[in-house]
Structures are given as C-alpha cells and as structure tokens.
C-alpha cells in the first residue's frame, strides 16, 4: 500500500515535468539514437566524415547551446566583441566542434555506457548528467559529463567534459592568445581557416 502511494507520488512528479524531457533521459535517448544510426551506416563506419557531420547536425546540434559555449571559451573577451562578431565566433566554433566530433564518430566502436543517477532538485535549471564509458580491455572507464541548462525549448548542453577535460575551456588559452595577438577578427579568421581545411582520414585507414 505504501509502495503504491509512493509510486503514485512519483507519477505525479513525473507528470508535472512531462512537458520537458528530463536532462538525463534526453542525453541517453540521443546517445542511443546516434549509436544505432552509426551501427546501420556503413559509410560512417568506413570513415565518411561528411556523413557523420550530417548525422550530428540532425541529431545532436539542436540540443546544444553553441552561443554559451563560445562565451565560455572567450571568457573576458566575449564582452569586447560586437554582437556580429559574437555570432560569427559562435558559428565557427560550432563548425569546429561538429567537425571534431565527426572525427570521433567515424572511429566509434560499440561501448557500454553507464548513466549515474541524476543528482538534481526539480527546480534546478542547471544540472550535470554523468555517464561512464566502459572501453574493452583493461583501460580505465572514461567519465563523460554533460553540463546542461534549462531553456524554454528544453534542456541544452553547454559543456561536455571527457575524463575531466572540458571541450570548451580547453580552448580558452588558445582563444585568448589569438585575440591578444591578432584581435577578435583575427581569431574569427583563424577559426574559419581551420574549418576550411580538408577533413582528416580515418586513423585506421591511412
């Protein structure tokens, strides 16, 4: 009887939140979808990064806040950029991250992922979704943490930490020294030039 009641309470709480998908559920759903898509796609497995980019654009990009990511990477310099420059930086940074991720996807091997229970209060608007990838063989499991924020359009990721290394803050020093030496437009040019380089080969093939 007591269990039935707590189940009912849990259902109520769930219903109250039903409009927005919970952040950990969202991460898990997307990860599963992407893994399933790669499994079906021989081109991506064969190293077709352009196709991997398409997949990322369709499935992953809508759930990221690239403007906030660019702002974190720019730190102090974000405010000295004009709104147009901010837009350009966010766009180029997004392209860079998407291309980087596509390189990772073509090397993807099926791995077991554990999701840790979400430690958050219902009213929290920023949470960390923690997961752990178990690689084959005797390598240490790798933690992957998603920093997420609540927006009117559902939860969005604004940083990913792999083994404690932030995908975003790792760029801070590079961005800061570019801005110091060549100004904000110089940084935009460097990012654009980097994004025009041809995509690397799949490591196993070359």
């Amino acid at each position, binding site marked *: 009887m007591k269990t039935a009641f707590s189940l009912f309470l849990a259902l109520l709480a769930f219903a109250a939140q039903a409009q927005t998908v919970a952040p950990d559920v969202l991460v898990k759903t997307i990860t599963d979808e992407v893994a399933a898509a790669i499994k079906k796609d021989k081109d991506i497995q064969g190293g077709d990064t352009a196709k991997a980019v398409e997949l990322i654009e369709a499935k992953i990009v809508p759930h990221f806040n690239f403007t906030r990511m660019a702002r974190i990477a720019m730190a102090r310099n974000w405010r000295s950029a004009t709104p147009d420059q901010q837009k350009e930086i966010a766009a180029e940074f997004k392209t860079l991250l998407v291309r980087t991720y596509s390189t990772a996807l073509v090397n993807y091997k099926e791995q077991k992922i554990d999701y840790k229970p979400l430690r958050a209060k219902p009213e929290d608007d920023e949470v960390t979704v923690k997961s752990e990838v*178990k690689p084959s063989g005797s390598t*240490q499991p790798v933690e992957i943490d998603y920093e997420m924020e609540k927006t009117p359009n559902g939860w969005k990721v604004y940083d990913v930490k792999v083994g404690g290394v932030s995908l975003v803050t790792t760029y801070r020093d590079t961005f800061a020294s570019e801005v110091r030496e060549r100004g904000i437009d110089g940084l935009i040019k460097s990012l654009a030039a980097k994004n025009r380089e041809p995509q690397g080969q799949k490591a196993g093939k070359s």
Partner: protein
Amino acid sequence: MEVKRLCAALLLAGSLAGCATPGNPADPLEKVNRAVFAFNDVADKAVMTPVAKGYRAVIPGFMRTGIANFFSNLEDVWVSVNDVLQGKFQQGMEDATRVLFNSTFGIAGLFDFASDNGLPKHSEDFGQTLGVWGITSGPYLVIPLFGPSTFRDGLGFLVDARADLVYRGVSDDVPLRNSLYATRAITNRANLLDASSILEQAALDRYAFVRDAWLQRRRNLIYDGNPPREKDDSDDEPSK
C-alpha cells in the same frame, strides 16, 4: 660545480619566463616547452606513428588487447601501492585483487578478468600521490620523448620508472627489458592513434590544446573525478 650549474639553469629558466608573452600562468617555460613539443612531434611522426600503425595492421585485435592487458596488470601492482600511499585503502584492496585475479584466472594478465567482474581499472601514479599529499604541480614541462608533464609529475615519473616491474623484474637481461619497454611503448601509442586524429582536427594550436587538456586531466585524476570548481569555471556571464 653542480650547484653552480643548477643556478645557471634556474637563471635561464627565470629569464625565459620573464620574456614570455603573458600566456598560461601554469606554463612559464612555454618557449622551451614548445621546442621540445615540436621535437617530440617530429620523432612521433617519423618513428612512433608509423610503427604503431604497422603494429595495428599486423597484429590482430585480440592479441593487441592481450598484450595491453599484460602490461596493465604489471602496472596495477604499483597502482595498488599508490592507492595505499594516498590513503585509499579500499581501492588498494580492489586493485591488489585485480592483480591476483588477472594473474591467475586472467592467465598472467592477458585477460582482464577483473574488469568484467566489477573491479574496474584505476589510474594512479606517484605524481598523483604527490598531488594528494598537497604538493602543487609547479610549472608545466614537456619531457623529451615522453611528452606532457609538470615539475611534480616529472619527479613522480622518475619514481614510477624505478618502481616499474619491467625495470625491476628483468634487471639482469637488458635486451629483454628493452624489448619489453619498446613493446609497451608501441602498445600505448597504438591505443592513441584514434585520439591523435581527433586532436589534429580539434586544435587551433596543438601545443596549447594538449597542455590545457593535459593539465585538466591531471587535476581530475588527482581528485578522482571530482575536482572542486575553480574560480575560473564561471563563464563570465554578463547578465548575472
């Protein structure tokens, strides 16, 4: 004589630090480090990468995993010691149990029996132990042929090398020991081939990217995955 040379080296380091552009405060020796990094890069591209690729092309996957497991099992002995030195007795027991299981059921460590049975691998070394004891990392340092480190972790690395079971176990047979060293190095490099293609794509400035990622990684390892937030972690949000 030694002292004089040390002073000269420190002076040199100091003056280099003085004229460096205001980059990462953790990296006052950036100029020297960049030169060593470039050298390591050339050596890696000329020797290690081709060898590792060849190794990956020739040796079947299950054998490569077995070889990597073998070295990992030897390493776990020193991992357990460092667990204890850091006061993590439970983890020390677990890692010692890993060695016991993997050396027996795992056939001399070729199979990672323990990971499949709820005893995951941990990463510990003497540099981390020094970190847990409260010794700060000191300046970032790129070691020739070995890559990213810091003053503290470089010291840890020297201790790790002395404690290494390959070093201790076959001290009387130098050719065998050297071929074990080489096999281990190739195994480790082969495991990183995918990572280097990602790095190539990710970084605007590979030197800075590797440095900043490596420093974050070490910090994360010392705090076993739960580092306290740095002041710097805020994202400079104008609205708040």
